[in-house]
């Protein structure tokens, strides 16, 4: 798969400066490396002071880390973005229609486009949601579509994060940092703003208030707590929206509503932007061990007493086994050809696919169906013989637990290193807000970059960094 030359978003495949980077390149040429190194240090200092940190699972609790930030922006032209955003819009519409369908009439199964057991046997399918009408008809209020690029016009969807996509705070803080570090760049380039995201998020959440709500909807963010890896983001979003940041033990069901304990008694919440997984949401309905959720919240939800965002049960839409059906799903619900491509996917539950995967393991990427964050995956081309044989055993033992994909030749964007500009592989996670009748896509998104040479793993938990992402006005 690696015969084709890697596409670099600044220099193309043939070392010709691409148009979106023209103005940036002029600026960069005149900057001294020493000055930029100092700026890179300033940026880190700024992140540390602001407390933009994440906690690494498996490390000492008090350990807070910075996600490495690279000062070279990733630049996308307005035309490229326009095309991309149409594809994202289509995909998100399809996901919401799909979710409504599988929790109601299941037309897509009846039409034979998806095997029945893909839904009924899927751990991510939530029987509690059958027949439930989420307020405003929206399931995925916040979506983060992971995209990779392999050529000027070739974008692939790697993953549809339809549960609780994270990283938007980095998108916002990266921009904030760049504005402080290099104001002149923003005078020279017309970069589309991302700053409106928190206000849009609040508006979008408020637009989905439940039937029981009245007046200005009360919105709150539910966090698992201060030790969660994304706590900073939860606090950041609550702060930026001007709403309360709550934990499970601040909440209880009072008179058929979910209410938060304030200094003046219990106050009902209309819309709960939860950053807690389905399983932990309600110890009465799901995991009885959970101390992170609210006992009885699902019953309130079903009775129209609260809006939970994203809706419970949306995980079925970003399940890696369902992913392989996304082209069918898009066509079935939109009646249009999919604008964004899917990566070819082998479902190891199917014997022929499994045989192929076992034979070609060293060329493939294998992922756990329910995994996320880059944990438990195998990258064939860089794996050791030992890794490969260990994974072969795992695949044979639980084939249905895995999917496999070809190793894509991800595009690169330069990072600033000791040696100057050096290409590194990137992905892109645009953030999408869905409210009744409207889909809003923030121009750009979060660019994650693999900092190690040749590495294709961009996850922050695995040593990846981030960049500011610019969408230019054409």
């Amino acid at each position, binding site marked *: 798969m690696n015969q084709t030359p890697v596409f670099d978003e600044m220099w193309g495949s043939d070392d010709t400066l691409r148009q979106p980077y023209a103005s940036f390149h002029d600026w960069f040429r005149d900057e001294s490396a020493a000055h930029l190194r100092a700026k890179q240090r300033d940026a880190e200092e700024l992140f*540390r*002071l*602001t*407390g933009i940190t994440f906690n690494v699972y498996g490390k000492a609790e008090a350990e807070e880390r910075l996600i490495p930030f690279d000062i070279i922006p990733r630049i996308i032209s307005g035309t490229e973005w326009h095309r991309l955003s149409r594809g994202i819009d289509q995909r998100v519409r399809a996901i919401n229609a799909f979710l409504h369908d599988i929790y109601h009439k299941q037309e897509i199964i009846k039409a034979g486009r998806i095997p029945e057991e893909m839904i009924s046997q899927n751990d991510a399918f939530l029987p509690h949601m059958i027949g439930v009408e989420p307020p405003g008809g929206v399931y995925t209020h916040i979506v983060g579509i992971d995209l990779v690029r392999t050529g000027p016009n070739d974008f692939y969807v790697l993953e549809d994060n339809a549960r609780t996509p994270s990283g938007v705070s980095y998108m916002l803080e990266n921009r904030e940092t760049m504005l402080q570090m290099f104001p002149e760049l923003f005078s020279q380039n017309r970069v589309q703003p991302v700053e409106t995201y928190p206000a849009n998020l609040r508006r979008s959440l408020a637009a989905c208030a439940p039937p029981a709500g009245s007046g200005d909807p009360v919105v709150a963010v539910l966090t698992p707590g*201060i030790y969660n890896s994304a*706590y900073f983001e939860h*606090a*950041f979003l*609550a*702060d930026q929206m001007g*709403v*309360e*940041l*709550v*934990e499970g*033990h*601040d909440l209880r069901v009072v008179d058929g509503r979910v209410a*938060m*304990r*304030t*200094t003046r*008694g219990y106050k009902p919440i209309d819309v709960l932007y939860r950053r807690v997984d389905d399983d932990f949401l309600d110890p009465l309905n799901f995991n009885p061990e959970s101390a992170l959720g609210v006992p009885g919240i699902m019953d309130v939800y079903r009775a129209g007493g609260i809006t939970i965002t994203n809706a419970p049960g949306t995980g079925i839409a970003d399940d890696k086994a369902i992913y392989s059906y996304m082209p069918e799903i898009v066509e079935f619900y939109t009646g249009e050809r999919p604008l964004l491509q899917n990566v070819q996917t082998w479902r190891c539950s199917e014997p022929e696919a499994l045989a192929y995967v076992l034979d070609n393991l060293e060329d493939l990427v294998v992922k756990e169906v329910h995994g996320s964050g880059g944990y438990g995956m195998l990258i064939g081309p860089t794996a050791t013989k030992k890794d490969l044989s260990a994974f072969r055993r795992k695949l044979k033992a639980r084939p249905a637990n895995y999917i496999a994909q070809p190793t894509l030749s991800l595009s690169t964007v330069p990072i600033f290193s000791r040696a100057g500009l050096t290409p590194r592989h990137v992905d892109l996670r645009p953030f999408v807000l869905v409210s009744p009748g409207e889909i809003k896509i923030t121009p750009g998104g979060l660019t994650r970059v693999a900092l190690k040479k040749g590495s294709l793993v961009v996850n922050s938990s695995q040593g990846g960094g981030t960049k500011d992402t610019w969408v230019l006005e054409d």
Partner: protein
Amino acid sequence: MLGKTANGLFWMSRYLERAENTARLIETGQRIALTRLGDADEEWSSVLQSAGALSAFQASNEDLSKDTAINWLLRNRDNPSSILSCIETARQNARLVRTAITGEVWEAINATYMNARTALARKVSERDLPEVLRTIRQNTALVRGMTHGTMLRNEIYDFIRIGTFLERADNTARILDVKYYVLLPSASAVGTSLDNVQWESILRSVSARGGFRMEYGAGAGTQEIAHFLILDKRMPRSLAFCVGKLKDNLRYLNNSGSRPTPSQAQVNKLESYYLSHDIAAIFDYGLHEYIQKMLEMLSRLALQIEQDFRFYE
């Protein structure tokens, strides 16, 4: 506001105040030790006691010396009231209430934490001690300045103030509790250098030497010092001043109007029973008993505030 947030604000400001008070106590102890005017070991023992850290120190089985006392108060993690522990706890609470405080306050607290972690990463040598303590006091002062300059005057601010003044009143009362005997008329051979040192150390530990000299002149004695620290409403660390601020802030929080909250009732009683007499009456009552009573009332008040504003449930 969430009860949890009120709790976080309350403890954030208590721990910041405590860090600063401990820094001041160490400075005082060091000063006495260096001028060789008093019994140094005795002084470190009373510094530890004033900082509420003596029994834990004794349990740690370390020998009491200048070095061990300073290290215990500065950076020992087994001591929840060491400066480092206080600043870490304050910052942890600030993270919890991140949405309630301004970015400026958060950054000031976070900078305090980062600087303290660096300054206190290793044992602090005698040579570096003044600089380290200065850094800490400047940093906590910056937090206070940012709080004052950028926070809305609403209930969030009220809880910050309540935490600050409860801690401060408690601190002043503990200093008096440890040193009350040097203020007793019977014990004082007025004008001896030992007494001067002891008085001086009391005044230093509440940053009030200059203020006291200005108000009372050189000839003042024990009664005046006791009055200054307990009843003088102009002195920002006196019990009367702190309790007055607690009373104000609890009143702001009660927007129901007429009926006082239980914590308000308590603070009103505290003021009218214990802070509305003159210093002679306090000496008649018994200075030690009075201070003990005050400490007890302050800790009951803290519990009542916790309940009134649903910190935990």
